C-alpha cells in the first residue's frame, strides 16, 4: 500500500550537502554530507525502500573536514566528489577531492547490516583537486551523462576543468577560465547543461548568471541582475535546450530563455526567504522543486514553460471537459501554472533539495538541523501526467 506520507531521517549533525547517487538508476539512494566542526564528518548513504517506506543507511567517514558540497559521478556508482573545509587556526580553505566508496556500499541493498550504528567505513581518496592557486572551491560538477572523466570545479572566480585519469586517481587541469572584474568576484554555484553535447555550463556570481562554452572557456551569455540579490542556485531544463531556472536571495525563482536574457520568462514568488535550491524533475520538466530558508519545500507546476505546455496534463478541473478538444485542435493556450504542494516537515532552513535519479516522482530535502525528508509527488498529479 503506497501512501504519500513523508519519511524522515535525522542525522545527528548539521548538514547542507545532498545529492542523489546519479549513476544508480534502480534503487533510490541519496548521499548526505555533514557539517561539524568538532566531530568527524560523515557521509550518510541513504537507501530508500519505497515498497516498505523505510530508510536504510550506511555511514562513511569523511574525516578531512566538513562537507559543503557533494556530487556523484554519472558513470561510476562508487565515485563521488566533495568540497570540504580545511580549517586551521587562522585560515579556512575549501578544498575539493574525489573519493571512492567501498564496493559493497555501491549498490542499494534493502537489508541493513546488523551492526549499522557503529559500522562506519571509510572513503578511499582518489585525488585532490589542487586549488592552491585558485581559491576556495564552491562546487564540483560532473559532466552529465558522461563517462565520469570530466569534472568542472568553481573556485572563487575561476572555472577549472579537470580530466580524471588513471581511473580517477589523478586529476589534471585541462582548461580554466577566470572571471575578470573589479571587486572580489566569487562564484556561488554552477550547473552543467545536459544539452549541446554537454559543452555549456552556467555559473552564478553575485547577481549575475553567466553561460560558458567549455570548449573555448569563453562566456556565451550573461544575465545581469538576474535577481535583486545574490543568486544561490541554477538548474537547466532537461527537456528544453535553452531554458534554465535560477533562484536567489530575493526570495524569487526565475526562469530564463538564454536566447533572450533581458527578461525572465516566468517568475515565482512563493517563498518568504532566500531560495537556496531549484531543481527540475529529470523527466517531467514541468515539476519544479524549490527549497528555502523559510523552512519550506515547494513543488510547483510550471506547465506553460515546459516542453509540453499543451500536454494532456490538466491542472484545473474546469479544463477537463476541454481536454480532448485541446489535444485534437491544438489550441494555443498553455495550461495554468500553479503550486502543487508545500512541504513543511522541516523546522530549519532547507538548504538542499534533490530529485531521485531512480524514481522520477520522489525527492529528498535536507535542512540544517540534519533532517532529511523524503517525499513524493502527489499521486493524483502523477497519474495526470502519466495518462
Amino acid at each position, binding site marked *: 500500500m503506497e501512501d504519500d506520507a513523508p519519511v524522515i531521517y535525522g542525522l545527528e549533525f548539521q548538514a547542507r550537502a545532498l545529492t542523489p547517487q546519479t549513476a544508480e538508476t534502480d534503487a533510490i539512494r541519496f548521499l548526505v554530507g555533514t557539517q561539524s566542526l568538532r*566531530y568527524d564528518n560523515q557521509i550518510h548513504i541513504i537507501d530508500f525502500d519505497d515498497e516498505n517506506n523505510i530508510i536504510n543507511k550506511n555511514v562513511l567517514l569523511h574525516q578531512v573536514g566538513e562537507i559543503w558540497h557533494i556530487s556523484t559521478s554519472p558513470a561510476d556508482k562508487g565515485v563521488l566528489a566533495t568540497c570540504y573545509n580545511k*580549517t586551521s*587556526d*587562522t585560515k579556512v580553505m575549501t578544498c575539493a577531492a574525489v573519493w571512492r566508496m567501498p564496493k559493497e556500499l555501491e549498490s542499494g541493498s534493502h537489508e541493513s547490516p546488523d551492526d549499522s550504528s557503529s559500522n562506519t567505513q571509510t572513503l578511499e581518496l582518489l585525488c585532490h583537486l589542487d586549488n592552491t592557486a585558485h581559491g576556495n572551491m564552491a562546487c564540483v560538477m560532473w559532466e552529465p551523462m558522461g563517462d565520469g572523466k570530466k569534472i568542472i570545479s568553481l573556485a572563487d572566480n575561476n572555472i577549472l576543468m579537470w580530466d580524471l585519469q588513471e581511473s580517477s586517481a589523478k586529476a589534471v587541469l585541462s582548461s580554466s577560465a577566470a572571471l575578470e572584474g573589479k571587486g572580489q568576484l566569487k562564484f556561488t554555484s554552477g550547473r552543467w547543461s545536459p544539452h549541446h553535447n554537454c559543452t555549456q555550463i552556467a555559473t552564478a556570481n553575485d547577481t549575475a548568471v553567466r553561460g560558458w562554452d567549455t570548449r573555448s572557456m569563453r562566456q556565451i551569455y550573461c544575465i545581469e541582475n538576474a535577481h*535583486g*540579490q545574490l543568486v544561490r542556485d541554477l538548474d537547466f531544463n532537461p527537456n528544453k535546450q535553452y531554458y534554465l531556472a535560477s533562484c536567489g536571495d530575493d526570495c524569487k525563482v526565475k526562469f530564463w530563455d538564454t536566447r533572450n536574457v533581458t527578461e525572465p520568462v516566468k517568475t515565482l514568488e512563493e517563498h518568504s526567504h532566500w531560495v537556496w535550491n531549484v531543481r527540475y524533475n529529470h523527466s517531467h520538466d514541468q515539476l519544479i522543486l524549490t527549497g528555502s530558508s523559510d523552512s519550506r519545500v515547494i513543488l510547483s507546476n510550471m506547465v506553460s514553460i515546459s516542453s509540453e505546455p499543451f500536454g494532456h496534463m490538466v491542472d484545473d478541473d474546469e479544463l477537463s471537459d476541454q481536454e480532448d478538444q485541446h489535444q485534437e485542435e491544438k489550441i494555443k493556450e498553455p495550461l495554468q501554472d500553479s503550486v502543487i504542494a508545500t512541504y513543511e516537515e522541516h*523546522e530549519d532552513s532547507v538548504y538542499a533539495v534533490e530529485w531521485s535519479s531512480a524514481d522520477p516522482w520522489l525527492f529528498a530535502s535536507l535542512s540544517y*538541523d540534519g533532517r532529511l525528508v523524503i517525499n513524493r509527488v502527489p499521486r493524483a498529479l502523477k497519474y495526470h501526467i502519466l495518462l
Partner: protein
Amino acid sequence: MAAVTAGSGAGSGAAGSPEAAGGSSGGGGWRRPHGPLQRYYGPATAEAAEAAPDPTDINGPHFDPEAFMTKVRSECPLGQLLAREAALGREIRALDSDMQTLLYENYNKFISATDTIRKMKVDFRHMEAEMDDLAANMAAISASSARVSAALQERHRRGAQLAGTGPGRFTGADQWGVSRGGADAAAELVARAARERVDRYLRALQTFFLGCLGDVRQALAAPRPPGKEGPGLPDLLATLAASVLGQLKAVLAYVQLFTARDVAFASLPYFKGEFCVTAVREGLVVAFVRWLCRTARGFADGPAERGAPAAPPALLLLLARLCLDYENSTISYILTLTDEQFPPQDSGPAVTPGPALCAEARAAAQRLLDHYVQVQGAAVAQMLRKSVETRDWLGTVEPRNVRAVMKRVVEDITAIDVQVGQLFEEGVRRAQSSDSSRRAFSVYSSSRAPGRYAPSYTPSAPMDTHLLSNIQKLFSERIDIFSPVEFNKVSVLTGIIKISLKTLLECVRLRTLGRFGLQQVQVDGHYLQLYLWRFASDERVVQGLLDEVAASAAHRCLDPVPMEHSVVELICERG
C-alpha cells in the same frame, strides 16, 4: 416757321418731284400720311386739323393744291416763287432721305430683332436642359438638407443645453424627436453621448490621481533643509485622500446634469435605470475604485528590480493606509453617495456589491504593506549581511565594543518605527515579563533548557547538545518568518526584524568563527536584544531568533568559549 414749312411742303408736292406730282395726282394716299404712321409721327397734324381746315396749308389735312397754287401765283413775285420752289425741292429731298433712313433703320431693327429671337430660341433650348438638371439637383439638395438638419437638431439642442443655455428651452425636444419619427435613435444618441462623457470623466479622475501621486512622491523626495521636518505622512495622506474624494464628488455632480429632474431626456427609461447603474455606478465609481486599488497594488507588484526606480517605502506605506481607509470607510461612503444621487432600480442589471470592492481594497493594502516590510527588511538585512561577510571571524581580536553596524541597524529600525507610527496604530504587544530587558543573552539559550550546559563539549556525549537543542525547539514556539503582516505598527516592525535577524542567522552559518568571533557575535546579539525587543509584538520572537543566531554561531565556532555575561553587559552599556 410753320408757314415756310407748309409752303415748301406744298411746293415739293406740287412741282418738286415729278413722281411726286404724278403720285399726288394718282392718289391722295401718299400725300396724306396713313393711320398708324400718322398717329405715331404726327399728333400735331390732328391738332392742326382741328384748328382750321385751311386748303392752302401744305401741312394741313385739307390741303388743296389748286387753291394753294392760285394763292401763291397771286401773292408772290416770281423770284419768290422760284426760291420757294427751290426750298420746297430741298425739303422734299431732305424728307425723302430722312424717310429712307428711317425705313432702313427700321428694317435693321426688325432684322436684328429676328436674329435675337432666333438666338434666344436656341439658347433657351439649352437653358431648358440645364434648368431641368438644376431642378433635379435642387430637389436632391433639399432632401439631404432636410435630413441633416433633422439629425443636427438633436445635437444642437443637447449641446446648447450642456453649455448651460438652460434645459427649459428644449423641453419640446422630446416631442420634436417623436415628431421626427426617430425617438429611439435620439435616445440612443443621447445615451451614447452620456456614456462617452462618463468615460472621459473616468479618465480625468485617473489622470488626477496619478498627478496627486506624483506630487506626493515629489514631496517625499524633496531635499529637506537641515533642521526642518519633512512633510508629515499623515498630512500627505490627508491631502491625497481629500483631493481624490473631492474630485470624485465634483464629477458626480457634473454627471448629475444628465439625470436632473428638469431635463427632458432624464425621463427616458435608459437614464433612470441603466445609466445610473451601468454607466455611473459601475462604469465610473466602481471602475475608478478598482483602478485605484490596482494602481496602488502595482507599486508593490511592479518590476522594481531591473533598474527602474522603485517606489520609496514611504509611498508604499501611504498607499497601504489609503487603501485601508478606503476599505474601512471611504468606499461605503462613495457608494452611498452614488446611490443617493443616482438611485438604482431594483430590476436593474447586477451591481458590484460594496463588500467586494472593500475586499479588493484590503487585498491591495495587504500586498502593499507586505511589500513595504520586504523592502525595509531587505535594506536592514543587507547591512547585516555585508557586516558578516566581510569580517574576518577567525582572526578577530577580543571584542571591546559593539560593532558599528549594529548601532546603525537599531537606528534604522527606530526610524522605521517612527515612520510607520505616523500612519498606523501601535497594535497589541504581548505583555512583557518583568525582566525582559535584562534577559541574559546566553549562547546556550539556557532560559528554556532543562539545565545549564557545560561550557565545553565532551566527546563522550556527542549527541547531547544537538538533542537538547532539538528538544528546545519542541518547546519553543516555531517562529514563522512570514506570518502575514497585520495593519499595525508592531506587526510591521516585527516582520522587518524577523527578516533581518533571519538573514543574520543565515550569514553566520556560512562562516567559521574563532573564539573571539563567537564572543563578538555574543556582544552584538545582546546589544540587538537590548534595543530591538521593544519594537516587536512579542519579545520572544526577537529572543528566539537571536538564540538561534547564537546557537548557530556556537556550532560554527572552532573554540566556543563564551564571554562572561557581565562583561557583555558592560560592553553593551558602554556602546
